[in-house]
């Protein structure tokens, strides 16, 4: 049935957005993770990517979470001579995670997730209407 295909496509969107949320929460959780060794590199921000792939059984382009890339941006450097991860000059590298960017990204993921949920709800109501014909 074609309506079930619509639901499956929307579910692929839900899965992809949930994977994106996982990467975002990883970034936020690690926003203060510094290196274990003095002068080493801290956590590097990760960026989720999406790709559209053709699902042959659904005959439609579903969405999937692609490779998770790392952000090549510069680390934040703070002068903390007493810190165990500080280099010879007393500087500590902090991750290149900007909480504001992560929050905005999270809202965007949430919005797309809700849109997919809406599609599933509308499709379900359409199926219910079809079954209502039987009841007459």
């Amino acid at each position, binding site marked *: 049935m074609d309506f079930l*295909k619509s*639901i499956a*496509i929307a579910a692929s969107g839900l899965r992809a957005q949930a994977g994106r949320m996982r990467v975002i929460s990883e970034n936020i959780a690690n926003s203060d993770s510094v290196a274990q060794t003095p002068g080493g590199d801290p956590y590097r921000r990760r960026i989720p990517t999406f790709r*559209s792939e053709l699902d042959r059984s659904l005959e439609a382009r*579903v969405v999937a979470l692609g490779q998770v890339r790392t952000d090549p941006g510069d680390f934040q450097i703070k002068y903390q001579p007493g810190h165990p991860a500080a280099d010879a000059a007393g500087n500590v590298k902090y991750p290149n995670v900007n909480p504001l960017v992560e929050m905005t990204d999270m809202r965007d993921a949430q919005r797309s997730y809700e849109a997919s949920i809406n599609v599933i709800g509308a499709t379900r109501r359409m199926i219910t209407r*079809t079954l209502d*014909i039987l009841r007459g």
Partner: protein
Amino acid sequence: MAISDIPIFAMLRTRMQWHQERQRILAENVANADTPGYRPNDLVEPKFNLPPPGPGSGPGPLQLARTDPAHIAGSTAAPQFPSNSRLYQVRPAGNAVSLEDEMLKVAANQMDYQAATSLYSRSLGLIKTAIGRMG
């Protein structure tokens, strides 16, 4: 005589299939709302009041007259069917899906589908009335 031989049921069934197909395409658009380079699709609304395209089905589009054989023929032929691939905005990643627009379309599709199924039930009721109450 099968019930699908009655024209109104055949028409409503085609309409419902169209909505089903459209729902699939809209779901595809929403799922790919963050895929770089994705362009949304939509089905063209079926038009019953337009004559079918083809030769001899009307005067055809106006042609510009050429007063000199060296002139380049101007083409004024309008597209036969309106395309629904309107793009509101293309984001820097090349994605042109507008979630608000897609939500509107999903809601409209659902309501139109509901109208079709209601008409189907009503038509079934008419047939039941015609058969009459037995027993």
